[in-house]
């Protein structure tokens, strides 16, 4: 038993010794949980080596997280203790460890001990603590809504906010824990709100680094927020057009909270509230009369309440109540104006007016009275139901008019408005240097006053008029708007809702007044007018361009001015863009706003061009429609020049040819009309005198003789000797040469002998045998050495009788038109022969007095065509 006891004690000691060895280090301060440390402060920890530990303080190493702490921060206290001091930063949430590293091959066990550091801030004192208990039904809610400003600093550690409430003198304290992080509000339930007691409220904020508290103590009514006054009503009073009666009910019993009230009101048309001074409504009252209001005006009224002497919070404003004051008679005159449009011999005056500014009721009608030349002209009652309050009249140019107008409502009559319209030639001077500008989307007009004024004129005010251009034909509103400004003002802003992108004519009229008798007359001076836009925009549409003239290298473009409605601004310039076909290589030309046609130059000839015109305002540009045109091939006069040149050339050529022909006519004649053998030189010609020329020949005995020309020799000459020799043979053998069937005739002909055999004996003596000289060398194609062939006619009629019967020459010429082909024979060659009494061929153109025909030889040399086919024998 004793030995076992010793063994047990030994084992326990051993266990303790081993355990002690493993846990022989400790850090102070120590905690089972984290140690909260304040950011920015120094924190010192001490590492203690317990007895029996194999290490000394020199072996100790401090680590923060995984980082070793510099040795300079160590403070060795003794052999077993060493401390470290570190500065706490906001992100320092880590283990602070005290350790002694185990050396290799060392028998010493590694020791380590750590504490967890959590950095944080102490709580900030809550600021601006306020608590509200709202009214619930007829009592005060026991729920106290408290709010405060916790500050912007995050404490980084768990921080609690608790609200406490207590009635001093009582033991009961109510509290509410606010669960939110960095709580800003909380509701504490008091079970019963302590009416007419002092209430103490405080909020306490706590964390591991400290606590703070904000306190509020006041009479409990200080925390109350009542409901707005109940049943707020606004009542009108018939006899008092400038007052309204307001009544209400207390929202809470005076024994709980005695209230005072606040009333505010505004016109329906205004956003500005007018508050009744609190001193007027301080008492515990339930009605109040609002005074000095405007008649016939709708007012909005609201109320709220607060504990007397401002002992509580203000309630919310009550719902708005709207009521109108009753009518009073108009307090101001209607605003009268006129528009004068001169006609041929008169003036068309349109009177326009606005209701009185202080109408104090609904205007029922207007009384308009017109005097011309100081005599009453007409008077009208015009109902005010018309949308357009206007009246038109004719006023002769030489007459002046005075107009008076009065407005009426149910309560009475307004002051009178007067306006004078002078004779056309008696207008008063206008202002100078009028200009306008846009400011805050409004038109600001500036002008210079006319000084000095002629006596007895006095400047009363200025009137600014604006008229939309172009005017709508069917407009229902007044044709013009106007506003009056005091006489000492020369710059003003038009308080009109002018439309954007619309042109207006702005006119400034000085309104003069002068006294005539005891009556003041008001008369406008001459207006100064400028067009204006309150806002310009790019034109709605671009100009449509047309090409009016297209030439070889230029084109004239024309475009219409954009309609005023579509301009939307002042056109500052037009830009003409043009390009060849589809090349898109645009060229541009910029022209002024008043230019509506332009000539494009330096264009390529016979080329397609695309052109458009872009109109620009200061706000933008809009292009018009494309137009395509083609330039001409020839320029102006080019065609004419060419035609003239060609014609002249042709003329010269013709003349030249004619000249050549005239000069070389012999050659040409020879070329065209080779020399025909002169029959006078032929042997046949010698026969001719043997037969009477005027013998009657049967018409059927006509033979056509075709004479071929041999080169250089006339038939007459060659056959002089041959023909007589063959005469008998021809006659006896009765062979016809077949002249009639020769190839030169259009139809074969019988010879005289063939066709009329029965008359052969009768005609033998009188028949002249015509021989046709047939040669293949006609027209110079036949060589001269070829023997000529003859064809013989047995006609008894001589070929030509001009030798023996020159008086018959003309006749024979007219009849021998078939013999055209001998016409151009050389007259010089044949003329002597014809003159010598030999037979001749006469040309057919006896009518043409050509120079050639005028020559006698020529006529003798021509062949006569045989019109009748025969000649009388």
């Amino acid at each position, binding site marked *: 038993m004793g030995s076992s006891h010793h063994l047990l004690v030994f084992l326990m000691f051993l266990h303790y010794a081993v355990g002690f060895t493993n846990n022989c280090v400790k850090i102070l301060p120590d905690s089972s949980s984290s140690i909260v440390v304040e950011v920015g402060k120094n924190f010192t920890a001490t590492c203690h080596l317990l007895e029996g530990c194999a290490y000394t303080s020199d072996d100790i190493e401090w680590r923060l997280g995984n980082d070793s702490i510099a040795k300079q921060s160590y403070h060795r206290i003794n052999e077993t203790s060493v401390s470290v001091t570190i500065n706490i930063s906001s992100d320092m949430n880590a283990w602070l460890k005290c350790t002694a590293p185990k050396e290799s091959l060392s028998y010493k066990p590694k020791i380590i001990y750590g504490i967890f550091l959590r950095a944080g801030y102490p709580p900030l004192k809550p600021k601006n603590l306020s608590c509200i208990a709202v009214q619930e039904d007829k009592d005060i809610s026991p729920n106290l809504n408290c709010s405060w400003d916790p500050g912007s600093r995050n404490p980084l550690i768990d921080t609690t906010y608790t609200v406490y409430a207590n009635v001093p*003198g009582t033991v009961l304290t109510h509290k509410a824990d606010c669960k939110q992080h960095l709580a800003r509000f909380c509701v504490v339930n008091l*079970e019963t709100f302590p*009416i*007419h*007691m*002092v209430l103490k409220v405080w909020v306490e904020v706590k964390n591991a680094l400290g606590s703070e508290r904000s306190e509020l*103590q006041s*009479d409990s009514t200080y925390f109350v927020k009542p409901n707005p006054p109940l049943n707020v009503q606004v009542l009108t009073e018939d006899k008092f057009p400038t007052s309204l009666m307001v009544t209400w009910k207390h929202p809470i*019993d005076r*024994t709980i909270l005695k209230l005072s009230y606040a009333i505010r009101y505004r016109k329906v048309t205004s956003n500005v509230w007018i508050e009744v001074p609190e001193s007027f409504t301080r008492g515990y009252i339930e009605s109040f009369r609002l005074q000095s209001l405007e008649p016939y005006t709708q007012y909005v009224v609201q109320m709220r309440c607060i504990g007397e002497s401002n002992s509580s919070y203000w309630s919310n404003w009550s719902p708005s109540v709207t009521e109108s004051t009753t009518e009073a008679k108009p307090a101001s005159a209607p605003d009268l104006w006129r528009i004068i449009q001169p006609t041929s011999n008169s003036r068309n005056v349109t009177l326009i007016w606005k209701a009185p500014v202080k109408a104090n009721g609904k205007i029922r009608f207007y009384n308009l009275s017109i005097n011309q030349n100081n005599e009453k002209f007409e008077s009208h009652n015009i109902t005010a139901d018309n949308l357009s309050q206007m009246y038109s009249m004719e006023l002769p140019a030489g007459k002046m008019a005075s107009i008076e107008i009065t407005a009426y409502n149910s309560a009475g009559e307004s002051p009178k408005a007067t306006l004078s319209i002078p004779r056309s030639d008696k207008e008063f001077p206008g202002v100078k240097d009028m200009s306008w500008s846009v400011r805050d989307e409004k038109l600001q007009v500036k002008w210079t006053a006319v000084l000095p004024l002629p006596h007895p004129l006095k400047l009363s005010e200025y009137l600014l008029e604006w008229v939309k251009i172009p005017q709508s034909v069917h407009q229902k509103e007044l044709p013009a708007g106007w506003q009056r400004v005091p006489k000492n003002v020369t710059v003003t802003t038009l308080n009109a809702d002018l439309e954007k992108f619309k042109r207006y004519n702005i006119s400034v009229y000085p309104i003069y007044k002068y006294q005539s008798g005891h009556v003041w007359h008001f008369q406008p001076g001459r207006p100064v007018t400028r067009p204006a836009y309150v806002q310009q925009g790019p034109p709605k549409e671009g100009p449509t361009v047309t090409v009016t003239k297209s030439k070889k290298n230029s084109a004239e473009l024309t475009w219409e001015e954009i309609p005023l409605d579509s301009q939307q601004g002042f056109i500052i310039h037009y830009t003409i863009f043009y390009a060849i076909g589809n090349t898109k290589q645009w060229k541009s030309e910029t022209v002024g706003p008043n230019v509506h046609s332009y000539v494009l130059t330096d264009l390529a000839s016979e080329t397609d061009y695309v052109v458009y015109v872009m109109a620009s305002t200061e706000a933008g540009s809009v292009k018009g429609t494309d137009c395509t045109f083609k330039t001409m091939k020839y320029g102006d006069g080019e065609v004419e020049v060419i035609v003239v040149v060609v014609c002249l050339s042709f003329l010269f050529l013709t003349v030249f040819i004619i000249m050549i022909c005239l000069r070389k006519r012999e050659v040409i004649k020879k070329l065209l009309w080779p020399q025909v053998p002169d029959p006078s030189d032929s042997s046949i010609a010698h026969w001719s005198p043997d037969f009477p020329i005027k013998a009657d020949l049967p018409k059927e005995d006509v033979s056509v003789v075709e004479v071929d020309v041999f080169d250089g020799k006339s038939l007459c000459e060659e056959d002089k000797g041959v023909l007589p020799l063959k005469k008998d043979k021809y006659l006896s053998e009765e062979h016809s040469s077949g002249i009639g069937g020769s190839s030169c005739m259009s139809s074969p002909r019988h010879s005289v002998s063939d066709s009329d055999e029965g008359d052969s004996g009768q005609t033998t003596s009188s028949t002249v045998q015509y021989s046709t000289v047939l040669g293949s060398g006609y027209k110079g194609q036949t060589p001269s050495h070829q023997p000529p062939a003859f064809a013989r006619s047995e006609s008894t009629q001589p070929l030509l009788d001009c030798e023996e019967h020159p008086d018959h020459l003309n006749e024979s010429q007219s009849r021998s038109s078939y013999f055209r082909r001998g016409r151009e024979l050389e007259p010089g060659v044949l003329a002597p022969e014809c003159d010598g009494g030999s037979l001749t061929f006469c040309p057919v153109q006896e009518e043409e007095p050509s120079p050639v025909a005028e020559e006698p030889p020529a006529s003798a040399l021509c062949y006569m065509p045989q019109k009748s086919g025969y000649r009388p024998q």
Partner: protein
Amino acid sequence: MVCLSQRSQAKFRMILAILILIAVELVHPTVSCKNETCSQLLRHSLRLTRLMSKRTTELLETYKTSQDFADLICDMQMDNVPVSTVSGQTISQRILSVYTHLKEFLPHMKTVMEQQKDLNPPTNPVAEGLNRMITHVRHIAVRVNCILEILQPNIPIPEPAESPTGIPHAQNIFQQKAYGCIVLTRLQELLSQAVQEQKSLKKGKMCRKSTKNGS
């Protein structure tokens, strides 16, 4: 040593005086009274008493309506319920009487409230009203206590013991209802008298006198 002891004694006296002052302030029941002037105190006290008198009247009406009670029952004699009569020759004595009676009524009001909770559903308006009334009566007592402090600053205010009501638990329902009505009726009478007493105080220039006295 002597010098040190003298210095120590001086310090000790000063600290002791402060500690005594703190102790007195802590234990003094009228510590809240100093937060308000006399006139404020009297005004608030009068308003609160008047309000509670009105509320008690309303609550009594509600009670009678809900219990279907006749006035006769509410006026009958019941020994254990405090009387509403304010006694005393001087104004201070009568105010003290008011204060004492208010304190006496509190346990009875609690009993009635508990009985009403048992008798009727939790939403019973009488029970809710009674709950609020208890709080307000306590507050009136605090106010009256402050008035007494002003009226007789040198005389300690006797605090009535929180004694049991003496009402037997074995009351039947009718007895409970009658008891509740009697308590409310007498409380209403007490509050009415308290209002009158405070009005007398207001007329009596209590605050002007105390102001002159330097209170």
